[in-house]
Every structure is written in C-alpha cells, then in structure tokens.
C-alpha cells in the first residue's frame, strides 16, 4: 500500500474518524509525518521573471545624521511626540520640505530604503510632490510604476474609469468630472450639461464646482442656467464662478448697476432704491445685516460683485463723502473675491484702521481675505509695520495671517520685528495666548540662524517669569529653530562620518 499523500490525509481529517472508522491516533501520526515533510520540503516557487532593475543613481549618499533625521521626519503621520521640536503634521511637512530643498541644493538624495516613505508622505501631502523627483531620484519612478497609489508622480493624473461617471457615488463622479475637466474642459462640460436636469440637487452643487478647473466664458451658459436653480447652494457655486469671468453677461449686468449707482468721474453716489428679482438672481442679498442701512447694503453687494476693471485706478483718491466706507468695503470685497492684488494693496491700510477703530468681526475676516490677495512682496513690510506697534495691536489685525503668507525664511526686518514684539510683550507680562500663534509660525519660518537668539530669549523669560505659560511657546520655538539649524548643518556636512566604519 502506498503512503497516503497530504490531500488524502486532509480529506480523511475533514470527514472525521467517527464516520470513516479510521484510527484517530494512526491518522494523527500520519498527519505529523506528512506535515513535517511538507514544511521541510516546501516547493521553492520557480523564480519568476525579475523586474527590470532600477536606474543606477550615482548621487552621493547622505551622512548618517542627515539620513537619521529624514527617517525620523518621515515617520508615520499622526505621531505626536511630546517634547519634540516637530509639533504637528503641518510643521513636520514644512520641515521635510525645507530638508528636501537643502538636500536638492547640495545634490543629495534620501537613502534608497526611505524612498517608499517619501513617496507615501508626498502622496498624503501635495506640497511635498515637487520634491519627489529631485530628492528621491529615478528610484521613485521605478517604485511608482509598481504601486498604483504612487502613480501621482507621473504628470498625467490617473484616468478614472468611465464607469465611475455612470454608476459611481457623488464623490467618485466629482473626481471623474474633475479629471475630465483637466483633459478636455469642453467634453466635461457637455457631460455635465447632458446630465444636469436628471441630476439630484445635492449632486448638482458639487459637480458644478468642478468647472473651476479650466474655467472659461464657454462655461457661462451653464452657469447662468444654474442661477435659476432652486437650491441656494447651487446658485452660490454658480455666482462664485461667474465672479471670476469678467467678460460674462453677469459681470456686465453688475457693472451696469454699479455705474448707475456710482459715477466714477464725479464720485456722486446714488444707491439703488430697491432690490428687484433680477438683482436677487444675480446674487444681491436683499436683507442687510444689523446696523447697516438697506440702500448702503445693496450698494455694497453690487460693488462686491462688479468687475474691478470698470473703475479708474484713482477712484480712491477722490472724496466720496458719507458713502466712502460703503464704497471701500464693497471694493475690498471685490478685490478679495477677484484676487486683485493692486486693489487689495490700495484698500488694506484703510481697512486695517477700520478694524482697529470699530472692531467688527466681519471687517476682520475681510481684512484676512485681503491679506490672501496682497502681492507677496508687500507682506514682509506689512508684517514688520504691524508688529512695530506691539503684539496686541498686531494680533488684533491678524498679523499671523500676514506672517503665514510671508515667504520663508523671513527677511531680517521681519525677524527683528518679531523678536522685538515678543520681547516687549512678554516683558510687560502680556497675555500668553497672543504669543502662541506667532511663535509656532516663527519656529518654522525664521531663518534657522536665529536659533541662538530664540534660545537666549527663552532663557531670559524663564529666568524672569518661570511660571509664565508663554515660556513654553518661546522655548518650543527655540527648540524647533535649533532642530532646523542642525538639520541644515548636517546636510551641508555631507557623508564624512562614513569613513570611520
């Protein structure tokens, strides 16, 4: 009798000895013998076809400390280490970007085994993607070809399956339409137009939003149609998009209303007497907020939606009398909505004074929106100016928003202004919460050479007010700056340590 094979044994065990009448002990003995043979004699899978090897990368490797540092920074998201100079994911991503920029300048790459972690970080954080090619090198492309999640590194966004449009969830359909819009704006619009009437209302707003990609006057007709939609959300999306089309009929209607209310030559103001249906359709909200007169509100609403090019550049130089605040607020809203840096720069000083004087939350929000629009070159000077009058005034006008947009590393004037303001504020025992936001930004954006200055400030504060909550913020800033300084120093040092092993 030939020895039973493994499948025979398994079959016998599946049936059970009660039914087959076999001897359980003997069966188990056979199982043991067969199983061990199987374990010891595991068939070695015929070596499959090898993938083509990755291109050889001759770039010099990193020194050990630099490699250890980037490995540490690339560790999984959401790891919040207390006492670490890297406080949160956003800060970590900024440091990875700074590391990458320095590495790329020195012509260095992350070690091969860290390239997957780098690809993963850049998949989650779009801002790191430009660094994949210079810092991860050709190996990144070789790896990305093996894993669909990393396909983002090729310029072409992955082509979503057309089935997503016909059968997908709303999110999948939005993703599909967005991708189509990149490739073929007209075709995507036609798809949406064809489906428009049958589309459930909640999907319409989200799908319409994809027209923001490659927006052009060709989209105007669909947007006008959406202005008559029953859903407020859909109308709002359409209005937002129309505001970015200065040649549209909507813009022309708004311009006509604006020019009827304000004479740009004489600056005589004649606000609208009512808010009719057509105005409401074009987005003018009929009811003013508390404290604002109806006619002034309608005027502001019209101005906020009127293309700024209809106004002469010197409009603000002339006196509009009692209507000046309404006029300026409307123009400021238009500047923010249309992203017009010139008008934003012309209005920001007035609005800053307004925020300081009247402390209206709506004005503060509008001011922050203007900051987003200001030309980058103006930001450093503006931040330094705001900080000159002390941290309290500066945080009241949202200096952290200005600083946040100020390109890193901050120029010396900004660095000086930040240190002076912190020093001054804390010396007078100012509130700690005003310090936190500025310190967190400064930790990432100050030139790392400022680390000793920050450490000295932290030490001085600690000696003077050891219990002050602000000490921790400043100490963290100092630690982060030191971390960055070491990071850049070890990258510059190169792989000298390699020689001793």
């Amino acid at each position, binding site marked *: 009798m030939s020895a039973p094979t493994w499948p025979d044994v398994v079959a016998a065990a599946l049936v059970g000895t009660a039914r087959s009448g076999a001897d359980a002990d003997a*069966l188990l003995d056979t199982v043991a013998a067969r199983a061990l043979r199987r374990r010891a004699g595991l068939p070695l899978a015929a*070596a*499959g076809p090898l993938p083509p090897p990755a291109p050889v990368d001759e770039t010099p490797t990193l020194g050990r400390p630099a490699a250890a540092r980037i490995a540490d920074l690339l560790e999984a998201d959401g790891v919040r280490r207390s006492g670490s100079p890297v406080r949160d994911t956003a800060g970590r991503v900024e440091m990875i970007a700074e590391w990458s920029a320095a590495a790329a300048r020195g012509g260095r790459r992350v070690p091969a*085994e860290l390239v997957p972690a780098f690809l993963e970080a850049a998949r989650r954080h779009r801002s790191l993607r430009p660094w994949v090619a210079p810092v991860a090198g050709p190996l990144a492309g070789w790896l990305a070809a093996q894993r669909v999640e990393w396909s983002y590194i090729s310029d072409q966004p992955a082509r979503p399956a057309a089935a997503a449009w016909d059968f997908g969830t709303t999110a999948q359909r939005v993703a599909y339409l967005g991708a189509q819009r990149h490739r073929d704006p007209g075709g995507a619009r036609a798809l949406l137009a064809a489906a428009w009437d049958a589309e459930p209302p909640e999907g319409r707003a989200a799908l319409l939003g994809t027209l923001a990609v490659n927006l052009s006057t060709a989209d105007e007709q669909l947007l006008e149609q959406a202005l008559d939609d029953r859903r407020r959300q859909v109308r709002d999306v359409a209005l937002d998009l129309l505001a970015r089309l200065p040649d549209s009929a909507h813009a022309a209607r708004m311009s006509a209303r604006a020019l009827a209310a304000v004479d740009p030559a004489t600056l005589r103001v004649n606000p609208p007497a009512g808010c009719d249906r057509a105005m409401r359709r074009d987005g003018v909200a009929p009811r003013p907020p508390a404290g604002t007169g109806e006619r002034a509100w309608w005027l502001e609403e019209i101005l906020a939606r009127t293309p700024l090019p209809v106004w002469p550049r010197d409009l603000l130089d002339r006196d509009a009398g009692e209507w000046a605040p309404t006029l300026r607020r409307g123009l400021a809203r238009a500047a923010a909505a249309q992203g017009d840096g010139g008008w934003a720069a012309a209005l920001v000083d007035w609005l800053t004074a307004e925020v300081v004087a009247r402390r209206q939350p709506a004005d503060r929000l509008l001011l922050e929106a203007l900051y987003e629009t200001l030309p980058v070159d103006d930001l450093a000077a503006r931040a330094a100016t705001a900080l000159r009058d002390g941290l309290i005034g500066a945080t009241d006008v949202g200096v952290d928003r200005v600083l946040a947009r100020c390109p890193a590393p901050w120029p010396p004037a900004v660095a000086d202004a930040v240190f002076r303001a912190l020093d001054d504020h804390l010396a007078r025992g100012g509130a700690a919460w005003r310090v936190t936001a500025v310190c967190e930004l400064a930790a990432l954006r100050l030139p790392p050479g400022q680390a000793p200055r920050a450490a000295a400030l932290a030490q001085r504060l600690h000696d003077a007010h050891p219990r002050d909550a602000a000490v921790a913020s400043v100490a963290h800033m100092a630690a982060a700056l030191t*971390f960055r300084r*070491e990071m850049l120093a070890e990258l510059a040092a190169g792989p000298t340590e390699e020689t001793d092993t």
Partner: protein
Amino acid sequence: MPQPVVSDVRRWSADQVLSLAPDASAQRAARALAGDKAWCEVGYSADDVPPTVWGLCQGSDVQPYQTCVDLTEPAFRCTCPSRKFPCKHTLSVLLRWADEAVAAVPAPQWVREWQAARAETVSRAERQEEVARNGGEGSGRAASDKAATRRATRVAAGLAELDRWLADQLRGGLAGLSRLGSAHWEAMAARLVDAQAPGAARLVRNLADYAGDPERLLTELGLLRLLAAGFQRLDSLPPALAATLRLRVGIPVGAENVLATEPVRDRWQILGAHDEPEGDLIVRRVWLRGATTGRAALVLSFAGPFQVFSTDLVPGTELDADLCFYPEHVRVLIKHRHAPAAPLTGVDWRLPVDAAMREYAEALAADPWLERWPMVLDGVVPVEAGRSWSLDDETGGLPVDPAVGAPWRLVAAAGGRPLTVAGEWSATGLRPLSAWVGDRLIRL
C-alpha cells in the same frame, strides 16, 4: 579577580551607539548634548580598569553628573535622575568617543571605585555559575529530585490526557473544529497549565489562530500528537531529541544548567531583531550566526509594560563570545564576552535559497516543533507574485510572510538587484529583518 585584558577596543560607530537609545527623543537629546559645552571632562581609560568611557556633565544639578560606560559588557551608570536607560548623558559620552573626541587618560578615582564595585558583583555571579556547574550546592539536591519526579508524573498525566483529547478532536471532522471559538481550546490549555506543561499549553492555545485554515490546524494537531506520543516513550528517544521534547513540553531548564554546558566560542554576527507582544510582555528575538561555525543562535529577552530592553545586541555588529545552547540547540545564553561588540560589514554565513531551505529542513529534523529559524539569503531579489512577495535567486524563491505586508523598504533598497537579506523563517514565510547593500546594513 583578574582584569580581562582588552588592549584594543574597536571604536563603535555612531549608529551602534544610537541603537542603544530607548527612544528617538533620547537619540536626539544625546546628539545635541554630544557637542555641548556642558561636558567638563571626558576620558577613555583602559590602563588598570576594563576599557571605560567616562565623563562629567554639568546638568541642572549643582554637582556635575558622573557618567561611565564599561565597554566590555557594555554596562552603564549615570548619576542623573533620568528614568531612561541608558540616559542621554551615557549615549552622548559614547557618541563623543565614537567621534574620536575622547582622549585616553588614567581613570579618575570615582571610575576606579565603580569598576571595583562591579568587579565584585561580577565575580560573585561567576562563583554562582561555578556552583551551578558542579551540580548545585549539595543540600537542596535530594529535595529537588523529589520535586522533579512529582512534576514528571503530573506532566505525563497531562500529556496522556492531551493525547486522548487530540483523538477526540478528529472524531467529528475538521470542518466542525474550525467553527469552535477560542474557549474550546482554552479549556484544554488550562488543564495543561495545571499539569505543569506550559509549553504544550501554549501550542494548544495557539490553535485558536488557525480557525480559518484547516490545513494549518491539522498540521498543528499532528505536531501536538508528536509531542504527546513522544513524551510517553521519552526514555527510548535519543538523548538530544528527548531533551528538546522536554523543553517543548514546558519543563524548564535552569539558566545555571544551560551555562553548565560546553560553550561555543565564535564571532557571533548579529543578524536582526524582532519584537513581538506576548500577553503583557514584549518578547525580543535577536538572531545570531557564528562566523566560523555557521551555527544559528537566538537570544530571547523580555520587557514588561513601560520597561525597556536592556539588551545591547545591535544588529550589524559582531560579538566574540562564549554562548551556551539550550537543549533545542537554537536558544542561547551569553556566558562570556571576550571583547566588546564590533561593527560588522557583512555576514559570513550566507546561502542561496535552496541551500537555506535544506539547512532549515535539517533543523526541523532535529526539532520538529521549531517555530522560527534564522536565514541569511545570499543575493536575492524581492519579486512581486500576484498579491504576495517572494525573495528569489536562480535556485528558487521563498515567500515573504504575508503578515509583513509589502516589503517596500526592502524593494527600494534592492532596486531590482540582488542583495543579502537576513530574516526569520516561519511556517507562513520569511520576515526580512536586515539587508546589506554593499557593507551598509539596513534594518527592515
């Protein structure tokens, strides 16, 4: 006690130092402190003490902290209040030494005192070891013999019950067994614990993990039968196999008995380490291979919650030491170190896939219950095959343990070219632990 003469201690690499750190923040702190002005005095002394790196560091206390490291063990001491072990001062003084920033000077008084105190404890331990080698100190021997006999009877009864239970399991067929919850297995495991056979109990408890895999379940049942039936005719087995079997059943072997066996001296190359939770403990397995003997060795260590491992076995180093093997021929205790660990640039004992598998088969023949085995594969390429990965050379391919996931770090390090991979082989596949690209070690 005679001082070990170590004339030339090989300098450690910074990596080797940092791998001793209990966590990443200690590494950072140590790096920052290494270049600091806080160090008032540092030195390396090997004149009339074992090679020692020491330093005085001005911390937040009035007195500077005294930090010293005996490089032979290594053993650490620092007077700072930190609860981390080793603390940042210890690591940073080692970093300075690794960076050649420490001069050789005569040992100061406090270092001398520390080493003298240590020499005393070490020699006490050696005396105990000596006693153990001679079979204990006489007095307790007869009593322990009686206890051993009593235990043997209980274990035999427990395993006889296991044998009957195993036959019962097969009565209704495997299909029914797969549907049973862990309580079913737990009941038998508890009876084996009572019978003082914790090794067998663990194997029974593990059966619950194979509920969805009838073939694996059947395999493990077969191996348990081998254990139970083998124990009943223990006396007729070859002595080595009998000792292995007793160990697998869970009859403990005292460390003193292990240390009493003939030690094996070699340059033990540390291949890799893996930590795995087991109940409340974390078990660390460190795998070694002898450079000249080629023998595989496993150093086990355990840490409870919030504890750190005190092992200093760093992958990518080699240790000239005497090791004593447990009866199953894989697990070891370190009996004596002839020199501090030295950096390792490549592993001597490497095999192609088919030879590695043959070697494993031999190990399995000696110990059928062997769960894990260290392999060093010479020149393999990670290849994706369907949803799984394998490590291939021209002689064949070994599957990567699916529990590891896609081994992207290894794939990237290889870049499609062959490299040396050290890993831990088990029934589900290979868990890669380290790889060498040229002479650079990558921990996976």
